[in-house]
C-alpha cells in the first residue's frame, strides 16, 4: 500500500479536513499495531471517553465512568485496553473487546486468548478496573509491555507507579541509589513532579519536575539513574518519538526543547530549543510526527487555534496550521500518516490532512507520467517476433520463482524492544570500563523487561480492532465529520 503512494507527497498536514463534534479536552491516536492511527480516543470535559473511527469519522464507542474532565489517555500495546484518567481522582482501564450487549461476543483471537475465560462473559461492562487516587490525576500511562503497570501523575505533584499484579503502589521520589536518603523532609525540598512517561521500550521512567529537572528512574528499583537540568522552570510535558531516541519537553518558560536519548545509558543530550519569540506562546501540547522527522507544538493562544510544525533536524519552522478561532487544548499526530488531530476549547476535534491531487495516470494500466521528455531506447529484440512455443517456454521459466503470498507483513508501527545486546560502537571504540558499564545497563534493562513481562495481560493479539455494535440506537444527529 505505502509503496503505491506518491513517495514525494507532503509529509505534514495542511488544512482542517473535518471536525468531529465532541466535548473533548484530550485526544490520542492508537499508536501501534496493524491498525495504528485508525482510532482516536477523546477524553471529554464531561467525563465521557469516546472512541472515534478515523476512517469513517464516526463515534464507535462511548465509555461512561468518570464524573469530571478526562485529561489523560493511554492505549495498551495492542490496543485492547484504554486507560483514561480524570480530575475526579480516578483512572479507569477499559476493555475494548467487550461490547455493551452481552450477546454480542466478537469471535476474535482477542476473546479466545483470554486466559480468564471464566470471568469474561459475566462482565458485560467495558470498564475493567477503576483505580482511585488521593488527588486529581493529570496524566496516566500504561507500561508499554504490560497494561497491568500504570504510571500516574497527580495534580498535587506526585507520580505514582501502580502495579495491578500485586496491588502495590509506589510514589516515586528523587532518590539516587546509595545516596543517603535525606532524613529531614526539609532537605528533600518537596520536589514536585509535574509529568511522567515510560520510555517507548518500557525500560525507564522519565519524569519532569517543577524546578526544571528531568529525572530518569528505574521502574523496578525506583532509584533515580540520571538527573538533568533541562530548564529553569517547571516541565509541563514530556513526549518521546516512536523510536525512543528523541524527547521533546515543554516547560513553563514557553520553550520547547528536544533532547536525544541514548536508550542504553539514558544519557540525555540537549539538541534544540524552539520558541515563538514574537508572541511568547505557551504550548498546550507537543509531539513528534509518526516518522519523527517533524516536531509539533499546539499553541496556547487565547484567540487562535494554531499548530506549529518544525523540522526536527534543521529546526526550521515549516508550517503554522491556522484553524478556527477557538483556542487549542490538545493535539496529536497520526502514527503513520500526515494527519493531526486537535481539540478546541469548544470540545470539537479537528482533523488536519493534506489534500492529495488525483493521479490520473493510475487509471490507465502501464501509463506513466513523465516530468520531461525522455529519449526512448529500443531494446535490440523488442519487436522481434518470437516463436510461440519459445515464448511459452520463456514465460514459464520466468514464472518459475517462489513467491511468499501467505505471510502477513509485520511492518506496522510497534513499540521498540528493550536493548538486549551491546551496540557495536561499544565493542569497537569503547574501553573496557565503558563496555562494563554498558553491560550493566543491559542487565538492568533486561531486569526491567523480565519484571514487566511477568503476569502478562490479555492484550496478546497484535491485530486487535474494535467490533461494532450495530444494535445501538443511532441518532440522526451524529451526522458530523463528513463534508
Amino acid at each position: 500500500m505505502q509503496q503505491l503512494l506518491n513517495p514525494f507527497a507532503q509529509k505534514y498536514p495542511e488544512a482542517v479536513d473535518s471536525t468531529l463534534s465532541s466535548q473533548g479536552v484530550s485526544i490520542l491516536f492508537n499508536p501501534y499495531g496493524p491498525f495504528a492511527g485508525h482510532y482516536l480516543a477523546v477524553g471529554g470535559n464531561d467525563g465521557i471517553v469516546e472512541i472515534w473511527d478515523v476512517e469513517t469519522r464516526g463515534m464507535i464507542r462511548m465509555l461512561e465512568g468518570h464524573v469530571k474532565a478526562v485529561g489523560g489517555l493511554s492505549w495498551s500495546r495492542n490496543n485492547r485496553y484504554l486507560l483514561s484518567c480524570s480530575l475526579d481522582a480516578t483512572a479507569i482501564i477499559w476493555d475494548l473487546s467487550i461490547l455493551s450487549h452481552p450477546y454480542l461476543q466478537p469471535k476474535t483471537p482477542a476473546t479466545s486468548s483470554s486466559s480468564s475465560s471464566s470471568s469474561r462473559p459475566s462482565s458485560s461492562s467495558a470498564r475493567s478496573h477503576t483505580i482511585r487516587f488521593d488527588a486529581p490525576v493529570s496524566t496516566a500511562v500504561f507500561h508499554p509491555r504490560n497494561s497491568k503497570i500504570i504510571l500516574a501523575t497527580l495534580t498535587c505533584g506526585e507520580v505514582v507507579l501502580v502495579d495491578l499484579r500485586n496491588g502495590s503502589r509506589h510514589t516515586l521520589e528523587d532518590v539516587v541509589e546509595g545516596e543517603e536518603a535525606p532524613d529531614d523532609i526539609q532537605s528533600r525540598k518537596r520536589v514536585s513532579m509535574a509529568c511522567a512517561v515510560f520510555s517507548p521500550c518500557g525500560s525507564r521512567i522519565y519524569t519532569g519536575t517543577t524546578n526544571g529537572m528531568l529525572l530518569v528512574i528505574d521502574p523496578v528499583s525506583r532509584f533515580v539513574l540520571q538527573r538533568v537540568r533541562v530548564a529553569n522552570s517547571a516541565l509541563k510535558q514530556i513526549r518521546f518519538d516512536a523510536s525512543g531516541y528523541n524527547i521533546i519537553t515543554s516547560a513553563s518558560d514557553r520553550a520547547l526543547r528536544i533532547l536525544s536519548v541514548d536508550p542504553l545509558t539514558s544519557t540525555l543530550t540537549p539538541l534544540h530549543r524552539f520558541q515563538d519569540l514574537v508572541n511568547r506562546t505557551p504550548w498546550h501540547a507537543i509531539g513528534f510526527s509518526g516518522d519523527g522527522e517533524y516536531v509539533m507544538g499546539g499553541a496556547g493562544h487565547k484567540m487562535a487555534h494554531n499548530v506549529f510544525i518544525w523540522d526536527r533536524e534543521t529546526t526550521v519552522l515549516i508550517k503554522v496550521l491556522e484553524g478556527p478561532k477557538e483556542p487549542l487544548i490538545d493535539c496529536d499526530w497520526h502514527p503513520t500518516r500526515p494527519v493531526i488531530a486537535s481539540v478546541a476549547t469548544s470540545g470539537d476535534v479537528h482533523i488536519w490532512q493534506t489534500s492529495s491531487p488525483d493521479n490520473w495516470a493510475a487509471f490507465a494500466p502501464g501509463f506513466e507520467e513523465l516530468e520531461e521528455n525522455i529519449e526512448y531506447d529500443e531494446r535490440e529484440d523488442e519487436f522481434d517476433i518470437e516463436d510461440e512455443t519459445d515464448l511459452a517456454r520463456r514465460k514459464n521459466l520466468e514464472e518459475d520463482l517462489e513467491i511468499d503470498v501467505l505471510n502477513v507483513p509485520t511492518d506496522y508501527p510497534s513499540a521498540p524492544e528493550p536493548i538486549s545486546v551491546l551496540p557495536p560502537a561499544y565493542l569497537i571504540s569503547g574501553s573496557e570500563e565503558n563496555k562494563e558499564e554498558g553491560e550493566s545497563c543491559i542487565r538492568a534493562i533486561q531486569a526491567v523487561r523480565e519484571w514487566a513481562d511477568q503476569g502478562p495481560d490479555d492484550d496478546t493479539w497484535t491485530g486487535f480492532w474494535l467490533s461494532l455494535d450495530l444494535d445501538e440506537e443511532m441518532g440522526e444527529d451524529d451526522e458530523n465529520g463528513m463534508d
Partner: protein
Amino acid sequence: MAIPPSSPIGIQSNANANAEAGPSSGPKYLLSQTLSAHNRAVTALRFSNDGQTLVSAGADGWLHYWKPDTGDYIRGFQAHKTGINDISISPDSLYISTASDDSTSSIYYLHPPPAPLTSSSIPTSSSSPSSPSPNDEVRVAPLRTLIGHTAPVLSIAFSPKSNLLVTGSYDESAIIWDVKKGKILRNLPAHADAIWCVAWDNEGAMVLTASSDGLIRLWDVNTGQCLKTLDNDTNSPVSHASFTPSSYFLLSSTLSSTLRIYNIHTSKVLKTIQAPGVYVTEKFPCPALIFAPPDCSDNPSLSSPPSPDQDQMEVDQVNSVNGVNGHIQGQGQSSVMTSDGQGQGQRRQATTGRKDAWIIAGSENGKIVIWDLQSKSVMQVLEGHTSTVVALAVHPSGRIVASGSLEPERSIKLWRVD
C-alpha cells in the same frame, strides 16, 4: 503441465468420486456430504472466521446456515425477495451482509440475539435450549439496508475491521459504506462495465474492483483515489480477484479460463495458471481462492474427528444461537477457538514460515481444481458437481472445502481432508 485424466462427470458416490488426482503429495479432499436447501442456484458460500458456521446464499434470496463439522442444517431465512449474489461475514463473526439483485445490500446479525431485542436481556437457563428445528424460520429484520446502487449488487466484502463494506455492482460503480451509519462513505465510479468482484487488502487500506471491462483497479480507502490499474493481455473480463494475505500480490481469474498472480507494485504477472480442459470459465464467474494447505502433522486437535470436547463446543454453539450464550463454557470452546480462530492461519505461518500455498477454483464443467501456487501444477481435481461451480469457500483450518453450483443441480458439497 500434468493433468489428471478426466473421468465421466456426475459420479455421486461419496467414497471414490475423486480417487484420481494430480501428481501430488499432501492432503486429499474427499466428498463427504451433499446438502440441498436452495430452490435456485447456490451463489455464495462463506465460513465464519471462527470456523463454526457455514452460510450459503442462493438466487432464491435465502440464506441457509450449516455446521461445518457435521453438515447439519441450523436454520435459514429469506433475506431478499430477489436473488443474492454474494455474502460476506464480518471478521468478528457478528454480522453478515448480502449483495442482492434488488440493488441493495443488507446487514444482519450472523446469529440473531435472543428476543426481546434489548440490552437487558439476560440469558435464560442453560437447561432449556429448544433444539433448532430446520423449519424454525427466524424472522429477521436487517440491521442496516444499504441503498445506493442502481443495478444489481454483484459482490460485497467486509473490511478487516468490519467497520466498512465495499460493494461492486452491475451499475459499473463500487461503493464503500460506513457500516455503523449504514451510509455511503465513498463512491468509486470508474469502470466501463459491471464490477464482478471487490476485495480488501489485509490492512484495510486498499480495495480492489474487478470488472467485466477487463481491468482491476486498486483504490486508497482513505482518500478514494485510484492507485493503480492492472490489465490482462487478452482483455478478458475479470470475474474474480483477491489480495493474497501478504498484500503484495493479487490473484485474478478471467473469463479465459486463466488465473494470474500479479505483483501489485510492478504490475507484472508472476504466475499464469491454467488447466486446459479441466478448468474452464468462459461465461460464468467462477471463484478462485488462495489458502494454506492443511498441515497433516499439525496440532492433533485439528485433525481428529469431532471429539467429546468438540461435541461440547457444538452444544455451546446451539445454545448461543438460542440465547443461552456463555453459560456452558466447555473446555472445548477455548481450545477450538484458539486453533480455529482467525489468527490461526497467521500463527501457523509464523511458526513454520513455509511458502506452500494452494489455489482452488470452480469450473464450468462442475469440477473443482486445486493447484500448487509455486509450481502451478494441479494437485487435485474434485469431481462431483454436475453444474457450474460458482460458490466456493475454504474453512479457516483448511480442512473443509464447501462448493455450490448453479441450476439445475444447485447443491452444496462439503469436501474434507480425513
